[in-house]
């Protein structure tokens, strides 16, 4: 049985901040599978159903309506929720948005009208993607980042700089090291942001893109071990022998560091892993993470995890606005950010999966054919 709080069958979220928000793709195209498909596979579905409690000792979950559902094994795939601004900072004013669900997208899309002033708080992927969409729709966009650079949590300076330039060229007013004290409204509607410096920035709409938090409340109240996510082993197990977890709600140890990933790759691969483990297969989570983002006509593709890198190497493809940043821990290749450089992403992913570590000199030299490192030349 598959139970979910939202009224729809599982869907793809990435287009919510990209083609869907631009109006190029309708939400009905987002479903991962047709709703009937689940029944054909023998899966009962219950949507619009929120689970409020797990009774581990009786192996039951209780829905908001008070229904009791029994399980022999339970898999928590509760995802994450957008972080919001607290009420005291004006987070409850009309005209303030977050973006996580189809419903959020449907609220935001109609108000993105040309000429309106959109203020975006947070220079992570969602903030940047919405900035790109809003500029394409003709809004005036200001983006504020409190850290000293956008994408600071996830990328190196080189990548941050690439996207800073990209957005400024497209007319976004992008300001880093800038903290908002609170949002100010009139008659319950947002009108401006007041910065800690005392400066005031007028706005008609505010998008809060300050990250997300894993939906762990259910797991925590059931006593499952949580640490920035439901702690899972490399076989997807939680601290309760009958409960597994997968996706954005989990955290796990990779290369000695506890990580929580928010990506389609991780959700799909952990989901696949748990299904296999439940089916009795002996397997463990080793998939190499990957991620993508789209802003204007720029495609960012990432492979690997850059935690603990000591330096980066820049590879220019020779084409305009096309480059990749290779993250190394000493001489070990950890991860790659590829901007408009799918070749580096695709071949780099193979290189990382094969456990190879090309030298920084090889990588920096655009004359070196990455393909030779992956598939030996055919005779």
């Amino acid at each position: 049985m598959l139970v979910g709080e939202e009224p729809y069958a599982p869907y793809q979220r990435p287009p919510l901040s990209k083609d869907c928000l631009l109006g190029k793709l309708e939400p009905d195209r987002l479903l991962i599978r047709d709703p009937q498909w689940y029944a054909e596979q023998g899966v009962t579905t219950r949507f619009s159903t929120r689970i409020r409690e797990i009774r581990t000792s009786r192996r039951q979950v209780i829905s908001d309506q008070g229904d009791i559902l029994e399980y022999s094994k339970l898999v928590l795939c509760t995802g994450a929720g957008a972080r919001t601004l607290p009420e005291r900072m004006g987070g409850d004013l009309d005209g303030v948005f977050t973006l996580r669900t189809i419903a959020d997208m449907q609220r935001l899309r109609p108000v993105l009208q040309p000429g309106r002033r959109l203020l975006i708080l947070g220079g992570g992927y969602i903030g940047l993607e919405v900035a790109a969409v809003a500029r394409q729709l003709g809004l005036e966009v200001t983006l504020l980042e409190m850290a000293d650079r956008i994408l600071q949590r996830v990328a190196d300076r080189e990548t941050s700089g690439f996207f800073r330039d990209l957005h400024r060229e497209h007319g976004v007013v992008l300001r880093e090291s800038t903290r908002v004290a609170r949002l100010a409204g009139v008659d319950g509607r947002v009108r401006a942001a007041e910065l800690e410096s005392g400066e005031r920035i007028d706005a008609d709409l505010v998008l809060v893109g300050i990250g997300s938090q894993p939906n762990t409340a259910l797991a925590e109240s059931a006593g499952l071990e949580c640490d920035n996510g439901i702690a899972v082993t490399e076989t997807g197990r939680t601290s309760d022998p009958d409960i597994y977890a997968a996706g954005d709600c989990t955290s796990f140890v990779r290369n000695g560091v506890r990580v929580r990933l928010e990506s389609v790759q991780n959700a799909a691969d952990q989901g696949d892993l748990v299904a296999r483990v439940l089916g009795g297969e002996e397997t463990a989570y080793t998939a190499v993470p990957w991620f993508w983002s789209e802003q204007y006509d720029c495609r960012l593709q990432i492979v690997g995890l850059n935690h603990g890198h000591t330096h980066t190497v820049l590879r220019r493809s020779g084409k305009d606005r096309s480059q990749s940043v290779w993250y190394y821990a000493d001489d070990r290749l950890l991860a790659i950010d590829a901007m408009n450089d799918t070749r580096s992403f695709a071949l780099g992913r193979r290189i990382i999966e094969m456990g190879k570590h090309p030298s920084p000199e090889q990588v920096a030299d655009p004359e070196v054919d990455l393909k030779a490192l992956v598939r030996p030349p055919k005779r």
Partner: protein
Amino acid sequence: MTRITWKIEGDRDISGEVEDGLNLMEAAIAHDVPYIYGECGGCLSCATCHVFVEPEWLEMTGPVDDVEDAMLEMTDVERRKTSRLSCQVEVSPELDGLVLHVPIPE
């Protein structure tokens, strides 16, 4: 509606009518074709929608752009001359009768 056939290598054939305007990855998912996952939703980041096009149909599926060509470097089963990422091909009446071969990863 356009008729598409997927031949699963060394296994069965799946044939079905597909709504025009979808892409061939979405069409495969709608017909529950195994080994086609479309993990990235068709944005050229996963290569989990790889197919071999029956040679006589190859030209009809249109040109392969640079990004698709680069992504074909990371398919699970090594690319061939007839390889396409099926999310990049839109279903249209001209493709009626199209035959695709679905490779099975190791």
